[in-house]
């Protein structure tokens, strides 16, 4: 089995937001957002679908522009700073805005304010900034206010390094004081950074759960090729942002009043609300979940990795298969919701299959994998390098070391 399961940029389903003002928009099959004239020197870059060579941070700024984002709120932290720099350079040409706030919490709450009045807002942060951001994100979760967060993971804990890690997987997928009702895409290339940032805006404004692009310092800073484009040119429909409050008509007479709450008086009230939200999240999971898998009945070792490490894993898989080893590959693209069914399917049919979980963290992906494979007895090997990059050569060496010794046939 070799498949890449990606979902379209726009999914029109009945599983829109559980509550709040949505004008019946999504249920009517969506509407193309009014396109801004992307003219001039900058507009031409998107228009011509030029293949460009740039850093990941630059790519994100372009993607936000292409996704019709209105406003970025932010506070500087390496390695995401250039997203702010590029955005604040691009934004004025297209009537978009940028505000540097006094810290990450303020940036997060300002985003929510922007979203309430119908603006597509986003933010980029990393490391300790991601921690501070959890409070507004939890509020967004509770009140189902949409927003897009770009996380360029750096080394942790605390200030640690400004360079790189995958140590913010747990924080980004399950941070806050709730159930982690979020959508998190873990990208592995500049092309994905561009496309998933655009997609993240659509998902956020469709489902109204906080939506993340989980990158890292490597992706932020490295330069590689990317093709930028206008979503419309690919037939991608952008979901417009509309005011969440103060919609047309008189509340209680013409329509249900909008009451976005993050405070509840009694346990049962909260429980009822969470049940609704959890059900909504369960429903969106099959629509949103994405993964990449390559596995067959002969596969002996299944490499499991996400984000940029998945690139090293894919490269290692190729090298090992060229050596005659039978190595497969599984990569969750959405790390929340996690493609658990797909992983179980890839593993479950073959009790002799060994897994090798590889990540630049100490078992954050591993614990997700284990939870999904509960009850199966396949052995799991690990290559865990918290805060450090993983090369294909290291993965090859780990698999080779593990490989069973040659069997002597009746000599």
């Amino acid at each position, binding site marked *: 089995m070799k498949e890449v399961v990606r979902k379209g940029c726009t999914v029109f389903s009945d599983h829109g937001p559980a509550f709040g003002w949505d004008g019946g928009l999504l249920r009517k099959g969506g509407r193309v957002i009014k396109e801004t004239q992307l003219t001039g020197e900058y507009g031409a870059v998107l228009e011509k679908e030029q293949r460009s060579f740039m850093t990941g941070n630059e790519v994100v700024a372009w993607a936000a522009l292409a996704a019709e984002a209105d406003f970025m709120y932010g506070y500087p932290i390496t390695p995401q700073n250039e997203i702010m720099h590029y955005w604040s350079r691009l934004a004025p040409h297209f009537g978009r805005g940028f505000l540097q706030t006094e810290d990450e919490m303020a940036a997060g709450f300002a985003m929510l304010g922007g979203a309430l009045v119908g603006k597509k807002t986003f933010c980029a942060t990393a490391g300790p900034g991601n921690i501070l951001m959890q409070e507004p994100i939890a509020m967004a979760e509770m009140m189902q206010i949409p927003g897009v967060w770009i996380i360029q993971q750096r080394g942790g804990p605390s200030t640690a*390094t400004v360079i790189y890690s995958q140590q913010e997987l747990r924080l980004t997928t399950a941070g806050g004081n709730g159930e982690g009702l979020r959508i998190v895409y873990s990208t592995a290339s500049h092309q994905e950074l561009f496309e998933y940032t655009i997609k993240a805006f659509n998902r956020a404004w469709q489902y109204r759960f906080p939506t993340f692009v989980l990158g890292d310092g*490597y992706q932020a800073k490295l330069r590689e090729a990317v093709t930028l484009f206008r979503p419309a040119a690919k037939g991608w429909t952008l979901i417009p942002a509309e005011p969440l409050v103060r919609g047309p008509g008189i509340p209680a007479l013409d329509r249900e009043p909008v009451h976005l709450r993050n405070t509840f008086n009694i346990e049962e009230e909260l429980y009822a609300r969470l049940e609704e939200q959890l059900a909504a999240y369960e429903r969106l999971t099959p629509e949103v979940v994405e993964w990449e898998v390559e596995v067959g009945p002969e596969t002996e070792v299944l490499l499991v990795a996400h984000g940029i490490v998945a690139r090293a894993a894919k490269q290692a898989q190729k090298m090992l298969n060229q050596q005659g080893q039978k190595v497969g590959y599984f990569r969750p693209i959405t790390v929340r919701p996690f493609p658990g069914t797909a992983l179980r399917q890839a593993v479950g049919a073959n009790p002799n299959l060994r897994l090798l979980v590889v990540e630049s963290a100490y078992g954050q992906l591993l614990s997700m994998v284990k939870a999904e494979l509960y009850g199966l007895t396949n052995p799991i090997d690990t290559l865990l390098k918290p805060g450090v990059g993983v090369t294909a050569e290291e993965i090859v060496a780990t698999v080779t070391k593990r490989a069973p010794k040659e069997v002597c046939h009746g000599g």
Partner: protein
Amino acid sequence: MADGKALKIIIAGEGGQGVQSIGELLAEAAFQAGKQALYIPNFGVEQRGGVSVAYVQISDEEIGAPKFLKADLLTVLSKRSAERTKGYLKPGTIYLYEQSALEAPVIDDRAVGIQGYETVAPEAFAKMVGDKAGKPATPPAAPALRPIGIRAAQTAKAELTPRVFNIIVLGAITKLIKVLPPAGVKEAIAKKFRAKFRENPELEELNFQAFAKGLTMIEAEGMQ
């Protein structure tokens, strides 16, 4: 690269020597030549000075991880950076090193910590490349290493201007790796420094001369 594997290049030196520009220009030229290219700088918390390392991969196929364990070409431009990157050597690595009897200006990491933002910017140090006399560097004793020494600092100082030191090195690398057309690398230089060249056309000429010197330096040394 003939076997489809990526060509792995490291350029290491002191902050201010123009190491990252070399990496960026190589990758840009490779991209323009229709190859797969990936460039990633290393960067620390310090905003000034320190050892600077650039990682470049050029390939005909998709490139995997941005970093790697062993380099096909390791360029070292200072003593400290040689020490820092010796783990990337493997049998057959081309070891391009600066052997002018001129010391690279080293920014004291400890002093950087003390002085904070008042430390001199690396750009200012660039003008001082090769001002101080020192002992010429020697290649490390590694098995099957292919050492190639150049005198880029001396050439830059005596014949051009110390500021184009890194472009001489870029020329030498271009010649050694053989996968990029020199004209394409020249175009990348022109593109990157367009604004500076417009301001100061003399600088453009100096850079192109430096690049040409770097290219011929490898032939002149007869070590290819």
